[in-house]
């Protein structure tokens, strides 16, 4: 039930922020559209722990803040490579293991790698990721370990207790 409440709250906040006109008729239409969205989502059976992860907003948002700093740090070498006179890059494929178990955690980890300039996730198979890196020396499997741990904690942390409850 909490997942439905979270989804309805986020949809309502999105509608109120995007509209800007708060007449009764439009508010009624907003209620109807939110209702249709929630019914469709529940018929698709996506309203669960991973489809509506708003209960984990705080860990996910703090992970996002950390990720933003990492992304901006990783931008510099790629910008330098783009504008330097000689093309000083060393592309390579790297295989990385992940400890993430749920699809949500794996998606967060793989998308974080892709968002970081210089690395793109090419393939996810079980607990292994195939990554294409622009600089082989920067993309050792250890360098992804902190991101892996943090995305695991953000999405999967305390998962066992939640499942048991």
């Amino acid at each position, binding site marked *: 039930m909490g997942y439905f409440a979270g989804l309805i709250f986020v949809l309502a906040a999105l509608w109120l922020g995007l509209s800007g006109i708060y007449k009764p008729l439009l508010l009624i239409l907003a209620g109807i559209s939110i209702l249709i969205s929630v019914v469709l989502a529940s018929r698709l059976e996506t309203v669960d722990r991973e489809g509506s992860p708003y209960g984990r907003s705080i860990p996910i948002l703090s992970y996002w803040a950390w990720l933003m700093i990492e992304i901006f740090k990783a931008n510099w070498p*790629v910008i330098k490579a*783009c504008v330097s006179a000689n*093309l000083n890059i060393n592309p*390579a*494929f790297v295989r990385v293991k992940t400890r993430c178990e749920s699809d949500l955690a794996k998606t967060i980890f793989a998308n974080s790698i892709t968002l970081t*300039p*210089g690395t793109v996730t090419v*393939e996810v198979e079980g607990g292994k990721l195939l990554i294409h890196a622009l600089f082989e020396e920067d993309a050792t499997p250890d360098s992804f370990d902190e991101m892996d741990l943090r995305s695991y904690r953000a999405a999967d942390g305390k998962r066992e207790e939640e499942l048991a409850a």
Partner: protein
Amino acid sequence: MSELLGILIFLKPWVGGILCVIGALLALIGSIGVLRFPDFFTRLHAASITDTSAVTLSLLGMAILAPSWLVVFKLAAIWLFIFLTSPTGSHALANAAHTAGLQPVLGRDLKRPDNSEEGA
């Protein structure tokens, strides 16, 4: 206090404009990288500059220039959706190229792989 407010109002268009210009320059650098890099996979990396820092700085500049909070909310929504969807798109492209058997350029000497089958 009102002096400080006056300085902030004076600075607002400048800060917003400069952030927008830096964002545009980063997008330009990303495009230059897309043109210069040797193969498909490395070009994806150059495009990710445009996806991340250029978008962030341009939208931040626009948010500072924005006349109302509703516009700021819309810009924030745009930013959020770009950050959620652009890695998915990049991954889909890379995965499709890998599955189709496109051989990447590897190593510091940027040796060209034999892609004659795919090129035909």
